[in-house]
């Protein structure tokens, strides 16, 4: 079911990923990018560039919310997971059930239980966490939602290198819209109905990105990295299964695809934190050097909290939690990971 007369496609947020996606969208559509701060908008518009990426001619900028939601029925929110709920709340009065949202945010919204600060790790269940599509449903009247995820490093996308992504939605029309608006000869778009699986794959891989950074920082070699990512994938799958999705999405773009890209690239923030830790910096110092937040730190805490509560076997997630919370040194952790009782190679399918 394709939509006719798609006049404009909206993008919320002009970060590096948002800009990269806006540029891809602009090849097929007129794109309207919402930028909250007027000064930033003017700056981007005069330079016709954002985050080091040139803006496509088909991109227009606005900070007028009502007209943004009036003229765009298909919108790609590309904002930070920490701001996601607030954004939904703030914009909910402009959103209607005929809007379609495809978000590209990799993160979870956590409603921590009372007294979680004392807990080590916080005891979390499925009830405490919400994915971004769930946040949209809770805060707005939009039902037709989807999620975009995959090995999509912003720098490579903007350098016009070939890539692929997956759009996950329960609605065929949302997947179709994603394909219709995004795909071109350098960008392939796949579809999936497993929204939870795709969203969790994108989130949980951040833990593995930190681990991979550590392995890289210690110069452990390709064998070790492959071992880490393969076992890590298993842990991600076990956790996702416990949260109520099957593992299918993990064998696609959002799972293995994203894991390979993120953990091989030394550009990602999570990876950088890992390699700084491996070089002997403390977490605080590492974050200082990075001068940015690494989503993976928060994700590790959530993932371990869930894993512990569901009694899952996730030694890598546990080790990352211990390293990040100063409970174990990197050498001790390595020794633990290499010597603990090994289970079946593949026990999750």
């Amino acid at each position, binding site marked *: *079911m394709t*939509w*006719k*007369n*798609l*006049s404009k496609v909206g993008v919320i947020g002009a970060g590096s990923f948002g800009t990269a996606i806006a540029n891809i969208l602009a090849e097929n559509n007129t794109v309207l990018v919402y930028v909250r701060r007027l000064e930033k908008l003017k700056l981007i518009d005069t330079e016709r560039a954002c985050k080091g990426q040139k803006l496509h001619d088909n991109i227009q900028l606005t900070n007028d919310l009502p007209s943004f939601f009036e003229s765009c*029925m298909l919108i790609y929110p590309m904002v930070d997971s920490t701001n996601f709920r607030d954004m939904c709340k703030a914009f*909910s*009065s402009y959103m*209607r*059930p*005929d809007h379609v949202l495809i978000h590209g945010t990799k993160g979870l919204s956590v409603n921590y239980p009372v007294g979680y600060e004392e807990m080590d790790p916080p005891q979390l269940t499925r009830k405490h966490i919400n994915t971004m599509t769930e946040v949209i449903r*809770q*805060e*707005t*009247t939009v*039902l*037709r939602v989807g999620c975009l995820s995959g090995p999509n490093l912003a720098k490579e996308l903007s350098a016009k290198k070939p890539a692929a992504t997956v759009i996950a939605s*329960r*609605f*065929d*029309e949302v997947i179709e819209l994603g394909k219709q608006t995004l795909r071109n000869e350098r960008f392939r778009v796949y579809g999936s109905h497993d929204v939870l699986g795709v969203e969790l794959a994108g989130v949980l891989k951040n833990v593995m990105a930190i681990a991979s950074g550590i392995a890289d920082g210690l110069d452990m070699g390709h064998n070790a990295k492959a071992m880490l990512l393969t076992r890590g994938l298993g842990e991600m799958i076990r956790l996702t299964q416990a949260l109520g999705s099957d593992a299918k999405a993990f064998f696609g773009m959002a799972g293995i695809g994203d894991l390979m890209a993120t953990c091989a690239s030394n550009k990602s923030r999570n990876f950088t934190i890992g390699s700084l830790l491996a070089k002997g910096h403390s977490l605080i110092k590492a974050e200082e050097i990075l001068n940015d937040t690494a989503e993976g730190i928060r994700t590790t805490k959530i993932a371990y909290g869930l894993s512990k509560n569901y009694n899952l076997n996730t030694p890598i997630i546990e080790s990352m939690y211990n390293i990040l919370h100063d409970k174990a040194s990197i050498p001790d952790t390595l020794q633990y990971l290499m010597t603990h009782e090994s289970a079946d190679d593949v026990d999750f399918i």
Partner: protein
Amino acid sequence: MITEIEQQIKEQLKQDAPSDMYEPILPELQDWPIYKLTQEKEEFAQVLADASLEHIKKLVDSPAVMEELLAKVVYLENIRLKQDAWKTDTKEEKEFWIATKKMLIQRSLDIKNDPKFAENYDYGIFREILEMYSREIIGTFNEDTYRFASKALPFSFNRLLNATSSWKVWSNQFKLTDRIKTFGYIDEIRNLARKGTIVVLPTHHSNLDSILIGWAIHCLGIPAVQYGAGLNLFSNPIMGYFFSRLGAYKIDRRKKNMLYLETLKTYSRLTVQKGLHSLFFPGGTRSRSGQLETKLKLGLLGTVIEAQRLNFQEAKPNQPAKKIFAVPLVINYHFVLEASSLIENHLKQQGQEKYFVGRNSMPSTKKISGFIWKFFSKQSEVLLSFGKPMDLFGNDLDEDGNSIDQHGKPIDIRSYFLAEGELTEDLQRESEYTRMLGDEVRKRFYRENIVLSSHFIAFVAFEILNKKHRRLDLYGLLRLPEEDRIIPYNQFVKVIKNMQNHLLAMENNGQVRLSNHVSGDVEKLIQHGLQNIGIYHPKQALKRNKEGDVTSENMNLLYFYHNRLKGYDLEKLI
């Protein structure tokens, strides 16, 4: 925090007063959509057959596949008539299917030699089948007999009642409204029934459900709701009488072929569009385990979403489209007539026990009379909890039936069907909306459920035994020797008290409703529960023995009634 209306409902539950009879919102039966439908029954059968055919053509686009489908339907129908014959099957029906089979064989030979087969494909036989199904499904609503039935029902109950409670022979105080009590969003529902079409979505535990709801709706002054009743139920004289007169249409569960199912769905969709208030059991069949519905059948529910979209598509300019409202309803019995066979069926389905299960058919007339007798003489009651009405997307409604979002802002629900400003038919989109509606209804069931004393004590007793015999699996537990089933009374009281506090807190959070006995004195609660849980079954699910301790004579039944409180995460409290 709970809303003002919730607070009122809570207080009403505590008062335990008889329910009111409400003024009919449409006093003239001739004005009821269901009456009008009966008046034009013949025309409607034609409309239904045509619409079903249109719909099937949309689903199956090639004549070759159509022909295959036809062959399959004919095969299934002939098998059904041979292997699963019922009294309700007619001679004409049998002749029709045999003749069709012969015709089809002849036709298959002709088709082989006909290069223009696809072009000239004749849908005549489909039309004939669909018309036959249509006539079978459409019910009869009779004005006079409705009036009679709605009077006869309480009258015969009252007669029985006066015969059983001899000390009150001369008193006319007992009314059906003393025993079948209605709670919840009644004013709101009455109001919405004037503004649009209501679809009642009840939990399903007993074959008596539909009659009870029919009666309750009558008490609320709402025009009769139509509901699908199994064809087999019409063979029971008492049930058949009421079913056919209170607005039931017929469903034959044996016919699982696509043509029949699509006709049924089209019937539901067309009648909802016509503004007939309807009732579906979203769980499909009666809950075998006794638990509140965990999974819903979405087939008929989907037709409601489709009807809503078509109401928008077919609305005349400058005329608002008729809106459809969903009303979850939880029926609470202290005892379910068919409990024994239901739970055995459930255990057998779970596949771990070699049960011999008797034919799970409608209880006999004698059994029903027995039920009614006990029901009144033992002062049992049925509580119907009418849930908060919503639109088909789970949104709240204001007084005028307008949908409002989580921030109190109005929503135009037409926009759920829009694609870039254009109203489109997208069956996959609608099937997702249906699934979401199903999820919402299921959640509401748990919130609107009224905890009865009998369910409460059954839950506690079963879980105490479960904990005590932790090593046993369910089937071991159900076969527990009698001497191991005893729970000291003091311990029982203690656990009940603890759990009661938790339930009261849940009630205050709007997570569940409590009957007046459950929120009151614990000793009385237990006494009331024991009186009611064993009311009908020859072997008591729960009772006090000579020493005053609590024990069960029938673990399966205890398990059945216990299941009612499953899904609230209460197990951890024991």
